[in-house]
Structure formats: C-alpha cells, structure tokens
C-alpha cells in the first residue's frame, strides 16, 4: 500500500528532473530546504530523522540533489522526503513537503481494534513493517512482495 503523505503523494513518483524543479521552486521563494528520512511510516508521524542540517543560502537545486542522492545512497530502502520551510513572519511553517523516495515494497497497514468499556471499539493503524526493529524494516534485498 502506498503511503500518501505530503504534496504530490497521490501522483506517480517524481522523477529527478521534477524533484529538481520543485526544489528550485522552494529556493526561488527563499525557503531553506532540508532532507529527512524514516522507516517508520505512519499518517501521524511527521517527525522524521534529519539528513544532515537544513540547507540555507543556496542558489541552485544541484546542492540539494547532491544531498538527496547522498541520503538515498545511505538509506536505499527508506522513505525520504524534502521539506521547504517558509520562515516569513506570520507563516513560519513547512510550506512544501514531498516524498522523493519510498521503499520498493510497502507492506501496508494493519487495522487493530481494541475493545473499550461499554463495548466501544478503538481503532489503531500499524504498519506491518514496524513489527521489526528500526533499520531492519525495509531490507535492501526486498524488492517486491514475496509470493
């Protein structure tokens, strides 16, 4: 199941050229860009690990592509996203955030039901991948669903 989080996530994966253009858009707006990665996908998990530091004062998207590629190399089968932060007074928030890499196989989410008082039911979603410890969730060798 495809995780849909951030902008463009219902579209087919962006090509590098498209990523470069989106990053260029961030830079022309003067938004510092950072790269984040995780192997703990969850609709409510917005705090991913940061790849290096946020990048300020850059003129060209090449530098960010360079870091994205470095992150891809280090985490070949993780989720990676790029954030553009708008520091303008009054906004001060992430203005654009999109996924630039996802694991080759995303096993999807399990719906857990918990019996509450008075026969009420509480629901929870849990990624099948998070059953394993961090770093082992999306093995590099795993390229698709095993049949």
């Amino acid at each position, binding site marked *: 199941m495809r995780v849909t989080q951030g902008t463009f996530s219902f579209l087919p994966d962006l090509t590098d050229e498209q990523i470069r253009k989106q990053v260029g858009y961030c830079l022309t707006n003067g938004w510092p860009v950072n790269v984040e990665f995780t192997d703990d996908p969850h609709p409510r998990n917005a705090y991913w690990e940061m790849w290096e530091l946020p*990048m300020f*004062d*850059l*003129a*060209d*998207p*090449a*530098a960010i*592509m*360079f*870091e994205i590629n470095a992150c891809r190399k280090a985490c070949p089968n993780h989720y990676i996203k790029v954030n553009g932060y708008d520091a303008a007074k009054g906004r001060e928030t992430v203005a654009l955030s999109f996924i630039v890499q996802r694991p080759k196989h995303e096993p999807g989410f399990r719906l857990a039901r918990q019996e509450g008082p008075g026969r009420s039911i509480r629901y929870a979603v849990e990624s099948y991948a998070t059953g394993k410890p961090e770093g082992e969730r999306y093995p590099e060798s795993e390229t698709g669903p095993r049949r």
Partner: protein
Amino acid sequence: MDHARIDGELLDIAQAFKDSSVQEVLDELDHQLVGLQEVKTRIREIAAFLLVDRLRREVGLTAERPVLHMCFTGRPGTGKTTVAMRMAQILHRLGYIRRDHLVVATRDDLVGQYVGHTAPKTKDVLKKAMGGLLFIDEAYYLYRRENERDYGQETIEILLQVMEQQREGLVVILAGYKERMDEFFRSNPGMRSRVAHHLDFPDFTPDELEQIAEMMLGQQMYFFTQPAREAFRAYLTRRMALPDFANARSVRNAIDRIKLRHANRIYSGSGPATREDLARIDATDILKSRVFQDLPGDPPSGEPAGAPSRVGERGKNAI
C-alpha cells in the same frame, strides 16, 4: 541535401552566437578592463571553443562536457576576480552553468580547525557555489608541504572529486601568484590535469595604471588637472617601487585617499566652491601623499597612518 543541412547549421552558428549574447560580455570586458590583451584573447578563444562545442553537441558530434576549470595566475590587483565575474556570465550565457553567480572562497572558508571539521565546511562552500562558479583565491594555501597532517589536503581531495564529476554544474577557478600556483600544481598533479585553462595576468604598465586611474575618476565624476596628472605619474613610479604594490587595487586605494585630501582641501579652503572645484583634483592633493615624503628613519609604507591594511585592500572590483 547534404549541403542544405550544412548551410542550415552555418546559419545556426551566427544565430547561436547572437542568442547567447556573449558578445556583449566580451565587449564589456574590452571596455572595462584596461590592457590584459592576452587574457582577453584567451577568453575570446575559450568562448568560441565553448560555443562551437555546444553546437557540436547539438548535432551529436561529441558527448563529453569539456573541462572548464581554470587557473588564473597573477599578482594582486591584476583583475583576476573581475575577469572571473565576467567568466561566470560567459559560461552562464553559453549554458555551461545554470546561474551566473560567483562564490569567492579562501583557505579559511574551506579548511577546518580540527578533525572532522573540514569536510562539512568544504562541502558547504561547494554547495553554495553549485550551479555557478567557485573562485578559490590564493589556492596554494590549501596545500602546506611542511605539515603533512594539514587539513588542507582533505579539502583538495573533496575538490578533486567534485571537479572530476562535473555533474553538479560547478566550475572551479583557482587563483594566486604564478610561482606559488606552479609549485602547488607540482605537488598536486591531480589538480593540474583537471584544470583545462591556465590564464596568466601580467602586471599593468604605468601607462595602463594611469588609464585605469582616469577611468575610475571618470566613473566617479572627478578629473585630473594637467599638473595633477603629472603628479600622479610621479606617484605611480614611487608607489610601484614599494613592496606591497597591488596594481589596480593600489590605484583604487590611492584614488580614495586623493578624494579624501581633495575633500579636506575644499572643506578647509576659504570661500565658496564652484561645481568645477568639487570635481577637480589638483596636484597638491596627490603630492601630500606619504609616498613623496621619504623621511629618514621612516619606513616607506606607502600607506598613510590609519589606511586600510593589506588585508583590507582586498576588494571585489579591482577595476
């Protein structure tokens, strides 16, 4: 049929040259820079080569991007940074770099203070320069032969890697004194082979320096009287003999100080000043310079007290 194709391409060359508007930059270079004939010719050659190379790639004659990294050698104030800025424009207009920005860096910006500090620092500068031009001033300081554990070596390795890949659209220009750059390349043969163009900036002749001075004054709406012109020539001969003479940069600083003395003369003078008075530089404004007062026991510094130090003399627009 074949002829028609070639004809079409011939037309393309003229059109491509016009489209790139490189000629404008080259003309500007001619106008704004006095002398430096050899450098100008080399730049023209490089521009022509790059244009032809681009056309060749368009028709599928070659696939490899030419090596663009350069080395500018010359004494201080000979116009290296100014030419580098023009080079950025030329490369940008020909489409070899994505933007015409120039990032100037020295050893301090690239090399760290302790283990593990250098690589992020160098990468930071490289990232800032990506898509444009990185100008490394006094590049030979990166390598210190006397200290083999110097962190400069790490910077050189990272630089080499980025220069080799050329993927990020980064062009590096190394600059510095000729002899010391030669030595730098001798100790770093890898660097030498990755630098395609070596441009040597000769010192300006006194005539050229005078021309530069006149041009600077003209831009700032001042003018020399005839005696002032002669005084300035005398000033130049004396100034050039001093050890810290930095060509056009020294001329610019001299003019700044002449302007100060001029203002002081007008201020302390009696009576109202005319429009002409405000623009005219007299010989007295020049002759008051320290260079003319070689008092015994006084070190010939060439700079009046409180003048910017040599470090402060560094500037972006040496012209």
